[in-house]
């Protein structure tokens, strides 16, 4: 077992026992990045100098007996997190040289605990994508099969866990961007309830859907890292002021008597046979553990993708208007006049997927179409949310696949955006309903690619899904398998 293979809680024990120092752990992680990241491309920016300074600081804290669960742990951040003094690109050319003057809230909370930030992770440009292929800094590869995508948009955050180039990472999830890459890379990825983690200092894609969450090697780490970043933040008006429970305390409660719902619309024809088999095995396992399995209905599921692509792109079209080349970011060199400065800077700075979504969102909000598209989508969103609330009257947790197939090949879906969008069918509804979901490793395809299982909880029901996920992980041990890298 190498230092870079360890989970947060394992490394924490070693740091606490002074078997290893944070500087050693950080060096090991930086060496590992140096050794394998050229194959994976999980990192956009590696920050060895700052990391080692933070590690030394962590070691001082540990020596002084002030160790917190994350003190001295090398973590990576999706490059969507604004970091003071560290370039933050959001995977885009338009922010290629942007060095923020401030830290976002989640980052500040990690730093307060003494976590060591080793670098900024690859992602789809502005989190728009499901394969990490829209990154200006090149696609990230799936450590289980380098010809496959790691999923997206938090592809780098998931790949770094699988490649063991970070002990844990943070990602963001707008339509599945934590859970889907976690599933494709065989790690644990949790999207909390909307409002649970502050969005302050997280570059916005779709403000009413974006949410920060952990990607980790196991469920315990997920609970730990969520606990560290969750909680009310007065700087985010949409952050919810309810206490953060001790997610670790309830992990081992077991699933006996837990009511687990299977939404019938999610178990459809066209599900990849390997995925189907993994789901069947998971259901059987939960049954054997004493869970009460029932079928439930989420009748408006088929409308989720359409709803999502209107709401998310509309919000994005406004969120991305600030990239105008005035105060920061790329400005076209040869622009003549103000109008050209805008349209050329933005044309050069944004990639095709971002442009496509800005166009779609602008159209959906434009005069004469607003009611037909945007208002309609918001109403359907109400129906989708009601579906979930109704289901949760009958069950505690929902069990579904994360994606219809395991990781797909690089470039496989690039030509057909709609097909790419449709692959998010099982994750998008959770964002629209604003509730929480977790992806847990649930086996492998015949080709050796990881398959994830999704557990969806009630709003602020993170404890239940973590408990259910932990029970599953303890029985299956899928999470212990390592990518061949």
């Amino acid at each position: 077992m190498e230092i870079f293979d360890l989970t947060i809680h394992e490394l924490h024990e070693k740091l606490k026992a002074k078997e290893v120092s944070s500087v050693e752990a950080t060096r090991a992680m930086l060496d590992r990045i140096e050794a394998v990241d050229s194959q994976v491309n999980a990192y956009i920016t590696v920050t060895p100098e700052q990391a080692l300074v933070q590690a030394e600081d962590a070691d001082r804290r540990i020596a002084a007996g002030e160790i917190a669960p994350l003190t001295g742990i090398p973590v990576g951040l999706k490059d969507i997190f604004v970091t003071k003094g560290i370039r933050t690109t959001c995977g885009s050319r338009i922010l290629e040289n942007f060095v923020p003057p401030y830290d976002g809230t989640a980052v500040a909370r990690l730093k307060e605990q003494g976590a060591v930030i080793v670098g900024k992770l690859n992602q789809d440009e502005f989190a728009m994508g499901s394969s990490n292929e829209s990154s200006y800094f090149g696609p990230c590869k799936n450590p289980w099969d380098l010809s496959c995508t790691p999923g997206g948009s938090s592809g780098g955050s998931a790949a770094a866990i699988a490649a063991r180039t970070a002990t844990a990472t943070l990602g963001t999830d707008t339509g599945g961007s934590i859970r889907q890459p976690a599933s494709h890379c065989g790690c644990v990825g949790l999207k909390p309830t909307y409002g649970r983690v502050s969005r302050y200092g997280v570059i916005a894609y779709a403000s009413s859907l974006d949410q920060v969450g952990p990607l980790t090697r196991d469920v315990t780490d997920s609970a730990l890292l969520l606990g560290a970043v969750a909680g009310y933040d007065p700087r985010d008006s949409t952050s919810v002021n309810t206490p953060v429970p001790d997610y670790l305390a309830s992990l081992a409660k077991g699933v006996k008597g837990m009511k687990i719902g299977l939404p019938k619309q999610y178990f459809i024809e066209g599900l990849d046979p390997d995925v189907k088999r993994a789901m069947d095995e998971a259901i059987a396992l939960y049954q054997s553990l004493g869970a009460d399995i029932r079928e439930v209905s989420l009748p408006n599921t088929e409308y989720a993708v359409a709803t999502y692509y209107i709401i998310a792109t509309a919000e994005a079209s406004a969120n991305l208007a600030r990239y105008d080349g005035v105060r920061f970011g790329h400005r076209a060199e040869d622009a003549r006049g103000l109008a050209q400065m805008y349209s050329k800077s933005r044309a050069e700075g944004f990639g095709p997927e971002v442009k496509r979504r800005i166009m779609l969102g602008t159209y959906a909000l434009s005069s004469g179409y607003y009611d037909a598209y945007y208002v309609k989508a918001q109403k359907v969103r109400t129906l989708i949310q009601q579906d979930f609330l109704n289901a949760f009257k009958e069950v505690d947790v929902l069990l579904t696949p994360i994606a219809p197939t395991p990781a797909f090949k690089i470039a496989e879906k690039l030509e057909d955006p709609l097909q790419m969008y449709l692959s998010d069918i099982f994750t998008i509804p959770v964002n629209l309903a604003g509730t929480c979901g977790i992806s847990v490793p649930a086996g492998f395809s015949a080709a050796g690619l990881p398959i994830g299982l999704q557990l969806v909880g009630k709003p602020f029901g993170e404890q239940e899904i973590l408990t259910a996920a932990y029970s599953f992980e303890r029985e299956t041990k899928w999470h212990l398998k390592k990518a061949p890298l």
Partner: protein
Amino acid sequence: MKYQVVIGLEVHTQLTTNTKIFCGCSTRFGAEPNSQTCPVCLGLPGALPVLNRQVVEYAIRAGLATNCSITKRNVFARKNYFYPDLPKGYQISQFDLPICQHGHLDIEVEGEKKRIGITRIHMEEDAGKLVHADIPGVDDSCVDLNRACTPLLEIVSEPDMRSPDEAIAYLKKLHQIVMYLGICDGNLEEGSFRCDANVSLMPVGSTVFGTRAELKNINSFKFIKQAIEYEIERQAEILDDGGKVVQETRLFDPNTGTTRSMRGKEEAHDYRYFPDPDLVPVIISDDWIEKVRGGLPELPETKRARFMSELGLSEYDAEVLVASRELAQYFEDTVALFPQAKTVSNWVMGEVTRALNDDNNRSIAQCPVTPALLADLLKLMEKGTISGKIAKTVFDEMYKTGKTPEKIVEEKGLVQVSDTGAIEAMVDEVLEKNAGQVAEYRGGKETLFGFFVGQVMRASKGKANPAVVNELLLKKLQG
């Protein structure tokens, strides 16, 4: 004139909060460019707005003072357009659910009262400033974001005004109210109170409005009149020639007193309003509204009526004294110490106002002669310690030095002489020196009486009690 002008006004008032509407930066005017900025008002990636509660409070005040109904559930919307002074590429404003609706103000023009409807009042953030800085070698435009994200109330009237004078009366009234409410400093030059005017013409007798032009950049009461008058002329000419007025935005140029089209710059705008997902609804409870209502100051209209009914002031005096909250306060504070409203009113409108005007239009709040000092002075006059004439001299000295009237009277020996013996001596001397005039007077030229009074007062250096002087002169001249 065969056309009737129809005017509606949109006023932007900058609120006097300490900090901006969505971030904790200061709103102070005149700081170094871009020194009052942060990730939020710079529109940096990842930054989020959080609403300043005071802005809501101020908006409710404005709504209650203008007879509006207050909207219970408020939503902020994004108004999307690109401009270098607009950091986020959208302005956070309110669209279909403004905080105040359906209000009115009563104005009076040449003795005629009229009610002007207020369509809506909404909260929004201001943009920054685009300036052409005087920097050698820089011909570009420059952006200063200190003003970006400062709180504004946009107050939109109904198209109820029918003359430039009505527009000015409405604006002055609104200006007075926001100043009374303490929500706006009312400074027109610094842009704290800005006005856009929608102006159209229709044939006299018609009820169908013509096509309107929106006039922008009007920053004084004088200019609003100029701008509207010019616009009436311009539109009338077009209509006379059988042409059609184009609906457009026109910029007022204070140098020429004309307006010009901004069409070139305004390409097809489609603001794509939608609810801002970074902000949550503002729910205003009845309790909150009542609390704000309870804290409202007495408004000028009520105050004026009270000054007339309780203090017996004339309508004119009352109107002048309520012009600003500070002036009315000064008056009332003085009356509290010297309860002769008429005298106080004469002094405040006379000496006090004159002294302030001569002193670079200093504000009443900074008047060196405080209400307490003024009351002391008036008491000295009432007791007969000094004459009214001397009182004015003493006032000037008080204004210059800030000393108490007693001290000035004492230092300068200005105590009024009422001692009959001393005055009689002066009277005798004057009559003796002016024997010729005395003869004329006695011969019937009674208009000379004033001349004798003046001579005696001069001899006493103004200190003689005028009543005593009059009495003695009359007696001696007749005797």
